[in-house]
């Protein structure tokens, strides 16, 4: 395996610290830079940037406006790959929107939708597309196949890369009462290009753990080391925290601990 880049998300409120930080190889961009961000020019000059914005949900075709935006951001960042999510978070008519990642039903119909629309998007991009797994907090009876099978079939038909979000896997395993390593084994790890790792915390509404902008636990980092060994094509590991409440210390320490764990 080639040496892995270890990085984080660009959090604009930490711009000054990130502009002068060391030990961070790349920054993922969840939002376009604000026009008034004084640190953006230095960030852009200094880091490898990964496009990780919301481009659109691939249950529907992206329109020309969305594709133009994706191309423009990819060009701005000079990103080595373009990331999107396996998500379907707003209704087809636009009336209801969850504003939070939410997985599609794992069915033949949705597989066909995502394959067709991802292939159409890939044809318009100059960079490879990678797709990130999204956790379900509950099972939906209308789903017809395990997530891992659905994802494997998607990657076989699109040749896209896999952005493996490990806390998402860990959470799903937790809520299904199975061992995370066992749960992970079914996913198409040979397609993984990038891994996400983050902390989890108890959530009062969920009455259980969920992703939080905190340091990854030792258990999560051990899970990361286990996963990376099984992802021969992986090129980057990203500390997945993007929040106004994230401190520079937590970000820097998390990246250092990720590096130590690998």
């Amino acid at each position, binding site marked *: 395996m080639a040496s892995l880049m270890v990085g984080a998300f660009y959090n604009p409120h930490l711009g000054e610290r990130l502009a002068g930080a060391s030990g961070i190889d790349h920054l993922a961009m969840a939002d376009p830079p604000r026009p*008034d961000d004084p640190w953006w020019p230095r960030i852009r000059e200094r880091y490898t940037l990964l496009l990780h914005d919301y481009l*659109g*949900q691939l*249950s*529907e*075709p*992206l*329109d*020309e*406006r*969305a594709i133009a935006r994706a191309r423009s951001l990819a060009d701005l960042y000079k990103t080595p790959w373009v990331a999107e999510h396996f998500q*379907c*978070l*707003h*209704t*087809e*008519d*636009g*009336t*209801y*929107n*969850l*504003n*939070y990642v*939410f997985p*599609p*039903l794992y*069915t033949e*119909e*949705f597989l066909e*939708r995502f394959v067709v629309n991802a292939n159409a998007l890939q044809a318009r991009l100059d960079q490879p597309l990678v797709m990130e797994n999204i956790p379900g*907090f*509950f*099972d*939906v*009876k*209308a789903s017809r196949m395990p997530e891992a099978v659905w994802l494997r079939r998607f990657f076989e038909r699109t040749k896209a890369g896999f952005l493996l979000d490990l806390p998402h896997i860990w959470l799903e395993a937790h809520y299904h009462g199975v061992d995370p390593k066992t749960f992970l084994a079914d996913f198409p790890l040979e397609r993984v290009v990038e891994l996400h790792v983050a902390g989890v915390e108890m*959530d009062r*509404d*969920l*009455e259980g753990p*969920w992703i939080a902008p905190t340091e990854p636990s030792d258990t999560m980092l051990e899970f990361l080391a286990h996963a990376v060994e099984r992802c021969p094509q992986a090129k980057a590991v990203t500390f997945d925290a993007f929040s*106004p409440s994230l401190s520079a210390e937590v970000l820097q320490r998390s990246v250092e601990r990720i590096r130590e764990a690998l």
Partner: protein
Amino acid sequence: MSDRAIQDTLIRALADAPFRSTPGWRDQVLADPVRVERFARFLARHFYYERLMHFFKYSRALAKVTGRSPETVLTGAGFEALLPVLVLGSRASAEAVAKLAVDQVRAGTRAVVPYLGDLLSYESAMMTVESGARIWSDGSSTAAAKQQWSVPMRVEGTMLLDLTYDLPVVLPRLLGPWTEVPQPPREPTRLLIARSPHGRVSVARTTTTIDTLLELADGRKSLDDLARDAGLRPAELQATLEGLVDIGAVRFSHGS
């Protein structure tokens, strides 16, 4: 029912609390109702956290003098009481949550921020105008439809806000470093707040021309009628309407 339609039902259930208590949802038994309810509450808190952090960022910047951060309402009893009636993205829900934030900040120290009332009206209006269904994809029919549009109409939800202070002058300064609270000039100011079909919220100072057009653009008057009633030359009318359409304050509908 297609899988996409089932997914839409699921999304609606998570976004629309009253819908979750209807037989139409309950009888489908698509998922464990306890888990769905927990996740819906999680989503609601997240949804309004993002909006309060964004639209009330000026009040948040003033928290060091008011002693009140708007987003803390999300862990209070007022928000808990709203959870059974919230519909994520609806105007009524946006107004209700914004009111909680306004009440929270207003109860803090106000002496050094004489324009706090204006500021809270502004932030609340921004959050309210942002609500509502939005267009996620332009599709392929937009260009053809545009060619048929001819009758301008003020978009529902577009807001005119009258302020005692010239608030736009001070807003950027509030987000920068300061030790003494930045103060705007006390000067009557009228702002237009509108949202594009794709959900982008814009603010503009109004002019007499804009005020007149917004009043007259009722979806029945043609461009010629508008130009005559507003006393505008065609070029002036066109330029103003283009600006209003761009920010989402006016749209064109089919003439009757």
